[in-house]
């Protein structure tokens, strides 16, 4: 069991445990904080996959912006304290069955995937993934159209959120 495997297992347990706590805890703010733990676990996994750029991006965007947005949204609602009542509804057995079926299907699909046996190409020693990403984002044979469309998408998100959330106070 190499060190990387141990680290991966710990990270996976933390992320999954956090995800379970998100949906089972009764206090909304606690749920948000468990979500942050899960997102942090995902960031660590990006690091384990030798993608440091995505590690820091995950923390900056997901934890630094989206999680804070969610916490603000939670605060805007009234009841944040314990919700009384059961945390499962009447159809829980159907949901459990579907989750089990989905899980089995995914496990079976992944176990028969030949991709695990292929060896990945060796990257040259001075391969700077961020430079390659940057060049690819704006090169005409690369992803320049999606790059610009992403900008338009963000603009649409901005205008849309203003249109939905903004009430002009007259």
């Amino acid at each position: 069991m190499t060190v990387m495997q141990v680290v991966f297992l710990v990270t996976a347990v933390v992320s999954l445990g956090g995800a379970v706590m998100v949906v089972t805890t009764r206090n909304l703010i606690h749920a948000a904080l468990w979500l942050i733990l899960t997102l942090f676990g995902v960031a660590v996994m990006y690091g384990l996959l030798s993608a440091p750029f995505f590690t820091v991006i995950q923390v900056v965007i997901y934890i630094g912006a989206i999680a804070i947005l969610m916490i603000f949204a939670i605060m805007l609602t009234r009841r944040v304290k314990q919700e009384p009542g059961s945390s499962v509804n009447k159809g829980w057995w159907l949901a459990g069955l579907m989750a089990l079926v989905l899980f089995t299907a995914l496990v079976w699909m992944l176990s028969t995937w030949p991709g695990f046996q292929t060896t990945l190409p060796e990257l040259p020693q001075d391969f700077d993934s961020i430079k390659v990403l940057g060049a690819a984002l704006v090169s005409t044979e690369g992803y320049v159209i999606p790059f610009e469309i992403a900008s338009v998408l963000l603009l649409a998100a901005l205008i849309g959120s203003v249109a939905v959330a903004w009430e002009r106070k007259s």
Partner: protein
Amino acid sequence: MASPDGFKAHMLNDWIFIGIFLLLAPIFPAAALLIPRLIAPRKPNSLKSETYECGIETYGETWVQFKAQYYIFALVFLIFDIEIVFLYPWAVAFEQLPMFAVFEGVLFILILVAGLFYTWRKGVLEWV
């Protein structure tokens, strides 16, 4: 801790340092908090544990009807955060980019500046 001069150690060593730092950094303030547990007095009584409200007694629950303005500012921040994160690889790869690619990046920025001006004109950026 240091990168030996001349040969670039594997990137992993740097992240091991950060990982260990991440695990050890909370220990220092936690140790600072453990010392009072040993030596400071602990006599909670109902008056001391009361919530502070400038000397008067608390009334009402501890929630305040927050303005939607907080949420809107967080939204605008989120959009611009993502935008600038997109620009970081563009900036790192700047050496290899032709002038045309620079203009593509500028176009990216200008589209979002237009969005900023839109929200400005709509009056969204006022903290009413």
